[in-house]
């Protein structure tokens, strides 16, 4: 196998890694906010349930969670999952896991906003939802951006965990090629690709942080 074919194959895998990455963020960022609301809810059972969920997601390996999501339906219910389920399982696993981390970041950010902001908005007659959307959330986002960037960088590398259920993203392919061609070149190429991927993510997030730093 030529170097060029290797690169081309890995690039195809990278496309799938990026797809996992984007879909995970699209799902986990909003879901995390909902989870954070649940975690801060005054309804005690809901709060405890969400706390338990976050504790499981953060307390067990993501790789194990992927296996449970992928094989669970069969072992538990003898359900026949179709061929497309492998990819769906990857996304479900990642979204559920990352939403838990994002939820805790949101919670910290929301609690860090002084009570006076909410009170000022209330006296001015803003509804609760408008207060959250226009007064609280923009300040929360700015506050939590560095922590979110951290998670986003970790997620780039975590996409490789999809190899656990043999979804053919970049890392799974690199492993396969390395074994069949007995060379470690695919690992080097994959490493470079992951690094570039993260470089771009860090660059974009830095721009976002700059853009939001117009006030203190």
């Amino acid at each position, binding site marked *: 196998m030529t170097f060029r074919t290797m690169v081309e194959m890995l690039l195809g895998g990278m496309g799938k890694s990026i797809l996992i990455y984007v879909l995970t963020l699209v799902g986990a960022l909003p879901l995390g906010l909902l989870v954070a609301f649940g975690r801060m809810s005054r309804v005690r059972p809901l709060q405890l349930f969400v706390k338990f969920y976050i504790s499981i997601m953060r307390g067990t390996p993501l790789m194990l969670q992927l296996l449970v999501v992928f094989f669970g339906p069969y072992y538990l219910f003898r359900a026949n999952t179709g061929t497309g389920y492998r990819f769906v399982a990857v996304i479900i696993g990642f979204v559920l896991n990352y939403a838990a981390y994002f939820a805790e970041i949101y919670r910290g950010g929301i609690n860090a906003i*002084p009570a*006076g*902001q909410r*009170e*000022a*908005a*209330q*006296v*001015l*007659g*803003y*509804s609760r939802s*408008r207060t959250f959307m*226009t*007064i609280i959330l*923009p*300040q929360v986002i*700015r506050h939590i951006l560095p922590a979110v960037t951290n998670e986003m960088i970790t997620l780039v590398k975590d996409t490789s965990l999809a190899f656990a259920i043999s979804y053919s993203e970049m890392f799974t392919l690199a492993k396969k090629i390395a074994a069949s061609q007995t060379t470690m070149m695919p690992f080097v190429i994959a490493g470079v690709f992951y690094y570039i991927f993260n470089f771009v993510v860090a660059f974009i997030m830095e721009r976002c942080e700059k853009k939001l730093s*117009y*006030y*203190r």
Partner: protein
Amino acid sequence: MSVLQMRGIRKSFGELEVLKDISLSVEEGEVVAIIGPSGSGKSTLLRCATLLETVDGGSITYLDHAVAWEEEDGAAVYAPAKELREVRQVFGLVFQNFNLFPHFSVLRNVTDAPMRVQKRPAAEVEQEALTLLKKMGLEGREKAYPFQLSGGQQQRVAIARALAMNPRLLFFDEPTSALDPELTGEVLRVIRRLAEEKMTMVIVTHEMGFARQVADRVIFMDKGVIVEQGGPEIIDHPVHARTRAFLNKLEGEEA
């Protein structure tokens, strides 16, 4: 008709009784100063009046809106949320630590609520905001962000923000307590001017000289009750021993 009428207000935080049967009414055009030692309940009274805290007992009425009233068992009940939203348009509040929205420019701080909450036309609101800011001595700072302003300027923006809603009554919660001494003057000057224009105001303050000047009525509170109230002359000639003790102590600190 009184703008605000509070009767028999009771409020406790746990075991601590903060307000014990307080009654207060404010007439149109009147300036009321509330003075008293810290922990006397004056800020809590203001927070109850502005619906930031709920009272345990007693009644609150703004103009012809019944906000809270007492049931037969003595517990206070509040009007439905929709009614309360309307009532909030009657009054404004200026906080001790301003509570401006840091991510909004000065102009947006003043225009956002009139535009989004009162749904008034943008052009009209903006014009009014610019006039208000000018009146507050903030001409040319419309595009600045709160962090770029001094405390005194921030508080004047906060006053403009409250006034932009065209309230019938404006509350001030120790409006100069968070300011450096050299900045209090500019804020007090603005409030004094509002008093001259017959703006109805209730001001919790520690500035005795200022209270004496602007207030039509001074209320002295201690330990959750109104000990004494009357014209501004009670600051110089308090009748009650507790008022005397408080004023003497203040004077001693200032000298």
